[in-house]
């Protein structure tokens, strides 16, 4: 349960975090320190609260009316749920990529420019669009069609566009909620390669159902499961290689060897 990580390198930290939907406790007592410029995977069976925890990191749970938290989430030491914190600012610094690609029904160019513009970007927009599309490994495929609707792209391309769109806001952390679950294996590998490249500049947290993906693509892995009271909890957190080869907890071992979930 402990987070054996270098304190200085932690960018965001959940402290004794419990998340409730109404009176139902969906996640309990999570202590999780996310390291800077690393890819952290959150794995676990359905209903264990992986996505709930992920969405707590940029306050997307605010839109669920009955959702509320105990505990703290410290981003650079600042509790993002403190009353003086503006959730809109939090989401600018902590971007998100969703399960199903959700580009805006606008042009490819406008998909990227929109987020930058509402966040007050004043620089050269053409340059920003090109740079972020290149960072998302999409530029070569779309550079001649920037005015085309984003919905004309394939699923994998749409998801990379959503990543590019998130990058254009210049976040520090990118949250990915099962970003490949709607994609085919080739598109999935492209996203995984892209995550590796992005981790040089960004810290990435990815929720995934796919254990091979976690094993392949992440540096650290947190394993969540469900307790008897149906509340999700974190069982084990550590280097991905250690979690997948020498899990300390029996429940982790059962899950990764396929005896459960």
């Amino acid at each position: 349960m402990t987070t054996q990580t270098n304190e200085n390198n932690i960018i965001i930290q959940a402290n004794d975090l419990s998340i409730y939907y109404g009176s139902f406790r969906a996640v309990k007592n999570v202590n999780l320190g996310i390291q800077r410029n690393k890819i952290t995977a959150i794995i676990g069976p359905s209903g264990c609260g992986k996505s709930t925890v992920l969405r707590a990191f940029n306050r997307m749970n605010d839109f669920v009316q009955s959702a509320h938290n105990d505990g703290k989430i410290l981003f650079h030491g600042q509790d993002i749920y403190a009353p003086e914190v503006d959730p809109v600012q939090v989401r600018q610094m902590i971007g998100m990529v969703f399960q199903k690609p959700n580009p805006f029904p606008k042009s490819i160019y406008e998909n990227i420019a929109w987020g930058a513009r509402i966040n007050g970007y004043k620089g050269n927009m053409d340059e920003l669009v090109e740079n972020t599309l290149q960072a998302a490994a999409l530029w070569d495929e779309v550079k001649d069609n920037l005015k085309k609707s984003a919905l004309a792209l394939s699923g994998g391309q749409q998801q990379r566009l959503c990543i590019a769109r998130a990058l254009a806001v210049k976040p520090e952390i990118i949250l990915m909620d099962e970003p490949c679950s709607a994609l085919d294996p080739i598109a999935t590998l492209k996203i995984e390669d892209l995550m590796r490249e992005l981790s040089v500049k960004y810290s990435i947290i990815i929720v995934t159902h796919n254990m091979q993906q976690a094993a392949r693509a992440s540096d650290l892995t947190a394993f969540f499961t469900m307790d008897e009271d149906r509340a999700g909890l974190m069982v084990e957190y550590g280097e991905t290689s250690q979690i997948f080869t020498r899990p300390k907890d029996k429940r982790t071992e059962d899950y990764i060897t396929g005896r459960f979930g």
Partner: protein
Amino acid sequence: MASMEITQNINQSSAQNISTRLRRQTRIGENLIQGFLFLCGMISIFTTIGIVFELGKESLLFFSTPEVKLIEFFTTTTWQPSIGKFGVLPLVNSTLMTTIFAMLIALPLGLAAAIYLSEYASHKARSILKPILEILAGIPTVVYGYFALTFMTPLLRGIFGEDNVQIYNTLSAGLVMGIMILPLVSSMSEDALSAVPRSLRDAAYGLGATRLETAIKIVLPAALSGIIAAFIIGISRAIGETMIVAVAAGSGPAFTFNPFKGAETMTGYIARISGGDLAYDTPDYNSIFAIGLLLFGITLILNIVSRRLVAKYREVYE
């Protein structure tokens, strides 16, 4: 083991009877239902055709009378059938004026209410506000007419002076018509806004957009086709609305752009003449069919134009 035998039995029996079992069945119920549904569709189509035919036939009669000239009908500004003056512009003008006043109320307020209900309101607020709006939509229009005459007109006269505002005036009728149409516009617009997938809002919020930015720049454009449809239906409703204007807008055709003066609208005129004691087959009487046809034409053109606009500007979110 038992399941194996069953499988084999099925295989054998279907091999023997396969052509019988696959033979096309007659399903009488299915055919009856299909025929009934087709008939229901046809009824509305035939009704429309019948109305257009009748309007056209009577209008032809009207335009074939010697006093009436098509060009004068559309270009002159006096409508006095008793002295043979058939210039439809005063009626069209007051219809457009009341419609514009109504839309100044119904479109912005209706859209704002829809955005509030769909993007801002809590479940509780919505569960209280929506039924109230729907009650507003259920009030008979004649009540709105008296509301215009006994509340809105005195209010306007109080503000702008009794010397300036006549008892019957197009502004009062138009404004109250706007209040009447507001729930229609807001309810249809809200449906269109609510139909925009949650995932698009998530995408915007995830980029650090505020509620307003998300509502105005993402949800609204995605719902545009539905909202324009709501506007068009609202406008058509205003053009065709009869009772409020008949009660509050005045009952004498007058060509004026002054909103404080009374002026009969196309619908108001039709209502007055069809309820009056004019003889059939006089030009006066037949004129109401021509005006009806004109009303029909205006709303038809409005529909066609709006379809074009929507197809051009909407952001499809599939």
